[in-house]
């Protein structure tokens, strides 16, 4: 083959269809926005029912997690996420789905080495780097405040 890798890469880029960036952004904004509005409405509703603001926020988060787990198990979440993209991945819904989906799927390999071991296969890196970033941020905050 006389074509160079660079020329072939150019040729590939030319023929490969691209993701519709603006449409994806719009859909992510609408879906992600809707999830956040729903969560905010929950917080406000719970607050009005006499729940403290901190508890209301925790309850709203828990509701999103449970709902996501339910929708994932029913096989509906991925259909929403197909359109929602970052809109479903960025809120806690994305995290919940990333934990539930590998767990469900690995049942066949047993509860310990299957479901439990695979539970963190996607969410694990988020926890590792999320906690690491929090520690670094905490240190910086601690020294700056001194």
């Amino acid at each position, binding site marked *: *083959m*006389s*074509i160079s*890798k660079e020329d*072939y*890469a150019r*040729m*590939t880029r030319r*023929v*490969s*269809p*691209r*993701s519709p960036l603006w449409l*994806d952004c719009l859909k992510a904004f609408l879906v992600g926005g809707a999830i956040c509005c729903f969560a905010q409405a929950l917080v406000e509703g719970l607050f009005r029912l006499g729940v403290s603001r901190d508890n209301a926020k925790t309850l709203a988060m828990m509701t999103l997690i449970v709902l996501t787990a339910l929708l*994932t*198990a029913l*096989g509906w*979440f*991925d259909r*929403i*996420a*197909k359109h*929602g*993209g970052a809109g*479903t*991945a960025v809120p806690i819904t*994305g995290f919940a*789905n*990333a934990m*539930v*989906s*590998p767990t*469900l*799927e*690995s049942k*066949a390999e047993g509860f310990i080495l299957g479901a439990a071991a695979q539970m963190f296969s*996607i969410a694990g890196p988020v926890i590792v780097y999320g906690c690491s970033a929090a520690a670094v941020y905490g240190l910086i905050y601690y020294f700056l405040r001194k």
Partner: protein
Amino acid sequence: MTEKKNRIIRLTRPPVVLASAGLVGKKEGEGPLGDCFDEIVPDATFGKESWEQAESEMLRRTIELSLTKAQRLPATTDVIFAGDLQNQCTASSFAAQTFSLPFCGLFGACSTMALALCMAAIGLDSGAFATAVAATSSHFCTAERQFRHPLEYGGQRTPSAQWTVTGAGAAVLGRANAQPGGVQITAVQLGTICDLGVTDPANMGAAMAPAAKETIAAFLRFSRTAPDDYDLILTGDLGAVGSELLYALLKKEDGIDLSPVHNDCGLMIFDRALQDVHAGGSGCGCSASVLCAHILPRMQRGELRRVLFVATGALLSATSTLQKQSIPGIAHAVLFSLDN
């Protein structure tokens, strides 16, 4: 690197296709070729407890069906050449177990059907076997698990990605003259690895197109034939992107216009406008089911007389992808001719 040596293996005692069968899942059954398949199984679990076992059952059923159609008993069959996409080809091993036959498990990714046919045909031509089965399968759910994400994971697919076909195909081959007037395999060509540096596992068509180009160009050159000499040059699962690139490469480097006689199993099996499969179908079961349930029966009916089947494979693993290795492509060719 252009192939300098003639790699075509001419079969002097061309094996014949005794029968073939293709079995697919629900989505494939809803596609344009739905009426052709021997069986459409709406239950993706095939009544089994895991997706992996489901795939084995699908392949087992397809092999059994092809043997029944060929009026051959496992006891009078000599060998099974089979492969799939699962780690260590377990779908094939478990499927073959039930037949108690000599078994040769093959891995050629999506090119495996062509590889299995090559091996079976060479063995039959040499006289080592009298009857051989070539079969492959792929299952959307096992492939997603192994190469991508869990099924229910909410992610987005890029438009160049392809959809792994849930399907299996099996062909029973016999020695020359076992069925006069039937479809013969007159030549085969094993492919060489071809890698033009594509690293995107969501663009397998681009990774495999150079291999298809090399095999097709070499086959045409060394057999002194042109695309017009074939009723159909059928690639396995290049999809929309890979097919475009194949045309462009052949035109640019060899001055060959393939488009009038070319089709791709990945483009035939799904309706891309309606079925949300992006660039088309893929997987070993894609080319196997289309070939065994659609193309070979068309040849047997005399609608096609000379078909060059070139199945392509992207020989990557989940590990090689994570290690940022480029994707090695391969394409094997099998020439089917209608016996006069």
